[in-house]
């Protein structure tokens, strides 16, 4: 039978063993023998690894020697290797779209326990592919230019790193940060493990470089509102929240803050995790970038009552002469156009009040690790003094690991950073207070360069290590030594006894969680989340910073718990991916667009309202609808509705889909 474009299909079928991944479960020789019986199959072969060079070579040789003009590879998911084999088909001398992939690994061998059933299912999928490929036609891919600018969402260490890498390469970068300053979680830390570098010593220079870089447009106190378009051509709407201080005029001199009607700070500082206080007008921390004050309308008297003497405004106007404070500032919506996006929105910490037996929120001397980071930080609210809420210096401190992590009741995953930061805090607390420090851990996990050595060092610093999951933190005391203290009840599983350890301070090493609004962001950018809520990478090993949405990349802890070195490495990787995309300048679009056959179109208007991208318009003079190829994203919704069968979708034509269904059902 001759296919539509006139040639007689000569099909080559290549079944991959994928080592034992497929071959271990599917009887590959049987599938190959079966494939040989299928119509128009000229050759069917098996190979250990089809994706390898010799595997691809088989295809190219068969095209040239046996005049194969249709290629079916039965191996893994098309999401993994479709591109590889299309390329091989092209290099063999055929149009790359005369190829189809049968997924017999992800959809068969890896999910089917009975080898016989797996083999039958693989046959069905191969038969479907053979039926389908008869209806494939040569297609031309369209190329569209890539806008060279880049959007980075999130100004933590990952976002900053990516921004600087790209800006240094000459790209224009829009860096969007929700808070009033960039810096993210890292800015809150005092020291970083395992080298005990001062966090702000290594971060602050990068922050100021961001601010001064001519290629970086920094937008703080801003959020992404809408995303439109596709790889190479995204249109993004950004909302700039009003900070009530004009950014260009403010010089960060603190005079307004000094003159606020609140003589002393009364409101918990978000940056200090509530350990320190701030005024309604404030600069979150001294190294903030941009160093610009911000007014919190929730606590500012002017916003609450409208009857504030507005001393801050007066001071700015009269003392500083800048007149930077503007109570009438409104939110601004900006629209930017970029070719690629890096999402680096980070994580949030686990809320330990969800575990009431640890007493967080009930016992004042139970802290989260992040609160203690602010306590030990030299620029924190206590100037680095580790003191209890009543000002006393703790004599004994317990650090509870895995709070909210590795726990089926809360988060099942290991948060990866807690062991190391707990060791760091243990070291700092011991060093600064001389207190007895008890680390209660489940397992000590210190894989990383210099990490195990750091643990080893701590073991010799007189820090106590107790292997056991803490049952509770209680103020129930049973003897005088415990009086006035918090008691940790923990089974020490190395000596097999339940211990009661009275301490002054408890540090909960809280785990990392996806941000609560990750879901909204995910929808904005059309990317996926894993079941846990972390942004999903395209491939866990081979494409760790790519997503299934072309042109959108992820970096840092928004993809999963990560320490600073890993977040920075990922940021670099994401920047590299973006550079490779942007510098290519053009992208090849999958030619799976919908096409209207004007001779068949009856002009019935049904398709027009259905197109989500407004790509279809009616042409009255010819009484037909027309698709704007540049706008069509290839969803096929119009094809599924066209009553005249005038619209077809390339690569997903009805004939192809029906043939595939038919083929799938031929094997019992």
């Amino acid at each position, binding site marked *: 039978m001759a296919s539509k474009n006139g040639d007689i299909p000569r099909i080559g079928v290549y079944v991959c063993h994928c080592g034992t991944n497929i071959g271990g479960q599917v009887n590959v020789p049987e599938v190959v023998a079966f494939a040989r019986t299928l119509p128009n199959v000229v050759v069917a072969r098996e190979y250990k690894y089809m994706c390898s060079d010799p595997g691809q070579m088989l295809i190219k040789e068969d095209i040239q020697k046996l005049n194969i003009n249709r290629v079916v590879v039965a191996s893994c998911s098309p999401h993994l290797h479709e591109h590889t084999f299309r390329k091989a088909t092209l290099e063999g001398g055929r149009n790359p779209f005369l190829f189809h992939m049968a997924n017999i690994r992800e959809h068969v061998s890896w999910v089917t326990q009975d080898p016989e059933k797996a083999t039958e299912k693989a046959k069905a999928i191969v038969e479907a592919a053979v039926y389908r490929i008869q209806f494939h036609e040569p297609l031309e891919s369209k190329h569209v230019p890539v806008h060279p600018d880049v959007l980075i969402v999130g100004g933590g260490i990952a976002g900053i790193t990516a921004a600087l890498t790209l800006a240094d390469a000459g790209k224009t970068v829009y860096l969007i940060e929700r808070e009033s300053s960039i810096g993210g979680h890292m800015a809150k830390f005092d020291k970083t493990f395992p080298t005990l570098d001062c966090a702000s010593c290594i971060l602050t220079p990068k922050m100021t470089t961001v601010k001064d870089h001519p290629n970086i447009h920094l937008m703080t106190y801003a959020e992404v509102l809408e995303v439109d378009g596709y790889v190479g051509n995204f249109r993004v709407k950004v909302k700039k929240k009003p900070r009530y201080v004009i950014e260009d005029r403010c010089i960060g001199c603190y005079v307004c803050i000094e003159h606020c009607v609140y003589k002393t700070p009364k409101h918990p500082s978000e940056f200090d995790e509530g350990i320190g206080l701030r005024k309604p007008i404030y600069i979150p921390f001294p190294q903030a970038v941009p160093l610009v004050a911000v007014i919190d309308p929730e606590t500012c008297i002017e916003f609450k009552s409208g009857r504030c003497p507005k001393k801050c405004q007066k001071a700015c106007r009269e003392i500083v002469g800048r007149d930077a404070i503007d109570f009438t500032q409104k939110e601004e919506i900006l629209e930017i156009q970029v070719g690629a996006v890096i999402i680096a929105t980070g994580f949030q910490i686990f809320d330990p009040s969800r575990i*009431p*037996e640890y*007493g967080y929120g*009930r016992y004042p001397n139970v802290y989260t690790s992040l609160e203690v980071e602010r306590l030990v930080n030299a620029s924190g609210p206590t100037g680095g003094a580790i003191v209890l809420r009543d000002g006393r210096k703790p004599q004994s401190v317990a650090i509870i690991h895995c709070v909210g992590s590795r726990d089926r009741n809360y988060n099942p995953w290991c948060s990866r950073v807690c062991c190391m930061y707990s060791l760091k805090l243990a070291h700092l607390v011991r060093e600064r207070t001389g207190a007895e420090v008890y680390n209660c851990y489940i397992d000590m996990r210190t894989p990383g360069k210099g990490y195990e050595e750091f643990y080893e060092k701590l073991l010799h610093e007189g820090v106590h290590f107790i292997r056991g999951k803490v049952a*509770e933190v*209680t*103020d*129930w005391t*049973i003897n005088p030594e415990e009086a006035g203290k918090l008691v940790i009840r923990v089974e020490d599983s190395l000596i097999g006894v339940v211990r009661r350890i009275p301490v002054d301070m408890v540090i909960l090493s809280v785990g990392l969680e996806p941000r609560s609004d990750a879901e909204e962001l995910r929808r904005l950018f059309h990317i996926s989340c894993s079941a846990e809520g972390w942004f999903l990478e395209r491939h866990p090993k081979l494409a760790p910073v790519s997503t299934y949405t072309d042109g959108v990349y992820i970096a840092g802890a928004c993809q999963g718990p990560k320490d600073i070195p890993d977040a920075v490495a990922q940021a670099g990787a994401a920047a590299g991916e973006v550079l490779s995309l942007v510098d290519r300048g053009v992208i090849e679009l999958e030619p799976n667009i919908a096409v209207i056959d004007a001779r068949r179109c009856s002009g019935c208007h049904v398709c027009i309202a259905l197109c989500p991208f407004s790509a279809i318009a009616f042409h009255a003079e010819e009484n037909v609808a027309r698709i704007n190829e540049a706008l069509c994203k290839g969803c096929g919704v119009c094809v599924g509705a066209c009553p005249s069968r005038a619209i077809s979708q390339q690569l997903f034509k009805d004939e192809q889909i029906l043939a595939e269904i038919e083929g799938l059902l031929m094997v019992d």
Partner: protein
Amino acid sequence: MAYFYYPGCSLKGTGASYEKSLLAVFAALDIPMQELPDWNCCGATSYMSIDEKVALAMAARNLAIAEENGRDIIAPCSACYMVLRKTQKYIKEYAHIRESILTALKQAGLTYRGDSVRIRHPLDVLITDVGVDEIRKRVRRPLNGVRVFPYYGCLIVRPKNGFDHATYPTSMDVLLEALGCEVIDHPLKTKCCGGSLTGTLEEVGMRLVYILLKEAKKRGSHAIATVCPLCQFNLDAYQEKVQKMYSESFAIPVMYVTQLLGYALGAQHTHLGLEQHIIPVQEVFEMVR
């Protein structure tokens, strides 16, 4: 919504004041409640350890009767509550148990389809179905100034009961707050009261009783509020004994939360079984400011 009330043996015996006050509270809140017709032992106590199958079948009989009438069961006794829930779960999850229980029920002319009958604790009903706001509205004699030590016991929260936290429950706290009480926060809410150990391993049992009494005393409690007949009995009856063993004097009234509720909702004293306690409870109400 109408409920079946499943008293179990305790509420007809040592826990008589629990029954009295519970009925008074439900009457005061206009909650229709009827004793489960022809109920039998829940199968707790020794039965469960002697012959689990028979014990489960006995418990299931109560479920079957309730299901016939399509009503939820309120099981105030913690042991009944736990055993009935356990029975329901076993029937649902283990085919062989389900089979033998259904066979047994069949011989009694009964059948049991599934888990349409919900086993409810009075706290659950009060918090979830009635609501704290409603109760707060109905309070006629607020218990302002009464310092109450809420004690939940070990059974009603484990395994997860769906209406309260397993290690740090708060449903009773919330209720007591609504009555005006000063609720004492403490970490022993679900610690063991000594349970049946007071009769078998007396020393251990007494120590557990002592821990609770001491903590309640230390925290300045006017009363301990319980929801379990065994907890109530252990903590009430052994105060003198504990006093001797640990040379520390105790006289803390141990009340059912329903007695405090009933009082606040305006039920008559005589309907609350207030006289049926070893440590007198009248003085608790004298603490009202």
